[in-house]
C-alpha cells in the first residue's frame, strides 16, 4: 500500500469519466460518515458527563438506603430472612425501549411496575413505619440505578459505533480516495502520452510525404527537360502528377 497504489484499468476517456464519478462518490461518503462520527461523539460526551454526575448522586442515594435499612433493622429486628424467603415474582421490572441517534440503535431502560406488592404484609407489626420508609427509599434508588444503567448501555453502544465509523472514515480517507486519485492521474498521464505519440507520428508522416513529394517534383523536372529536347511526344495521361493527399 504505497503512494502508487491504483486500480489497474485500461486507460481510456470513458474509464476516466467513470473514475472521476467514483471519486466524487467516495468524497461524499467520507463527509457524510464524518458528520455521523461527529454527531455520535457529541452524544457520547454528553452521556459520559451524565454518567459521572449520576454516579456521584448514586453514592449518596445508596448511603441513604443503607441508613434507612439500618433504621428499619433497629426498629423491626432482622428482616433479612423474611425478605429473602418471600422473594417470588419481581414487582419492578425493567423495560427496554429503542432509541435512534444518527443511525445508531440505542437501548433505554425504564422502570415498569406490575403485580401486587409481595411485601405488603411485612410492613405491619414491629417498626412498620421504618420498614415502609426503607422500602420507599430503596424504590427511589432503583429508579436512579435503572437510569444509570441506561446511560451505561448507551455509552458502550456509542463507543463501539464510534470506533467502527471512525475506522471507515479513515479507510476512505487514506486508502480509497488516494487509490482513485492515483488511478485518475495515471489515466490522464497515459492519455496525454498517447496524444503526444499521435501528434509525433502525424508529424513524421507529414515530413516523409514532403520528402517524397520533393523527390517526385525533381524527377518530373528532369524528365520534362529531357522531353523538351526530343520531339513533342503526346501527353501521357498516366504521366500526370497526382494531387498531393490532403493532410488536414
Amino acid at each position: 500500500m504505497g503512494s502508487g497504489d491504483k486500480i489497474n484499468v485500461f486507460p481510456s476517456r470513458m474509464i476516466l469519466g467513470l473514475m472521476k464519478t467514483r471519486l466524487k462518490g467516495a468524497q461524499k461518503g467520507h463527509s457524510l460518515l464524518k458528520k455521523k462520527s461527529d454527531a455520535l461523539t457529541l452524544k457520547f460526551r454528553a452521556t459520559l458527563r451524565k454518567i459521572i454526575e449520576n454516579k456521584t448522586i448514586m453514592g449518596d442515594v445508596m448511603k441513604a438506603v443503607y441508613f434507612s435499612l439500618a433504621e428499619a433493622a433497629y426498629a423491626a429486628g432482622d428482616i433479612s430472612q423474611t425478605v429473602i424467603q418471600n422473594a417470588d415474582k419481581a414487582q419492578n421490572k425493567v423495560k427496554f425501549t429503542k432509541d435512534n441517534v444518527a443511525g445508531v440503535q440505542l437501548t433505554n431502560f425504564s422502570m415498569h411496575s406490575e403485580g401486587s406488592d409481595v411485601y405488603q404484609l411485612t410492613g405491619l407489626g414491629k417498626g412498620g413505619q421504618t420498614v415502609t420508609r426503607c422500602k420507599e427509599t430503596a424504590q427511589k434508588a432503583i429508579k436512579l440505578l435503572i437510569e444509570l444503567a441506561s446511560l451505561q448501555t448507551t455509552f458502550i453502544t456509542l463507543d463501539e459505533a464510534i470506533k467502527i465509523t471512525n475506522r471507515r472514515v479513515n479507510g476512505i480517507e487514506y486508502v480509497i480516495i488516494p487509490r482513485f486519485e492515483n488511478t485518475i492521474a495515471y489515466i490522464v498521464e497515459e492519455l496525454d502520452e498517447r496524444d503526444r505519440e499521435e501528434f509525433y507520428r502525424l508529424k513524421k508522416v507529414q515530413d516523409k510525404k514532403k520528402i517524397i513529394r520533393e523527390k517526385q517534383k525533381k524527377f518530373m523536372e528532369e524528365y520534362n527537360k529531357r522531353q523538351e529536347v526530343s520531339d513533342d511526344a503526346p501527353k501521357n495521361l498516366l504521366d500526370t502528377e497526382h494531387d498531393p493527399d490532403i493532410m488536414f
Partner: protein
Amino acid sequence: SSGINAEYGGIGELNATREANFLVVKPDTVIGEVETFLKRLLARKDIGIVLINQHIANDVRHIIEAHTDPIPALLEIPSKEHPYDAAKDSILKRAKGMFSIDDLR
C-alpha cells in the same frame, strides 16, 4: 445486605426453575461461586441490568472487564462499608483517555 435491598426495591425474584436472580454474598461466600453466578446472569437473555457491590466487583474484576456487550448493563454500586470509588469503576476506566475530572466539575 445488598440482596436484601434488591428484595426491598422489589426486583428480586425466582424464575421457573426456582433460580434466583440475586445472590447474597456473605463473608464466607467463595469467590468461585460469585464468578459462576455472575457469568450465568450475564448469559441470561431476560436480564437487562446487573447490580454488583463494588468491593465484590473488585474480586471478580476480570469477568467484568471481559464483558463488553451493552446488555446486560453492569452497574457497580457502593455498599454500606465501602463507599463508591470512581477510580475502580470499569465503565469509567473505559473512557479514561477522553476526559479529565476537572473538565466536568
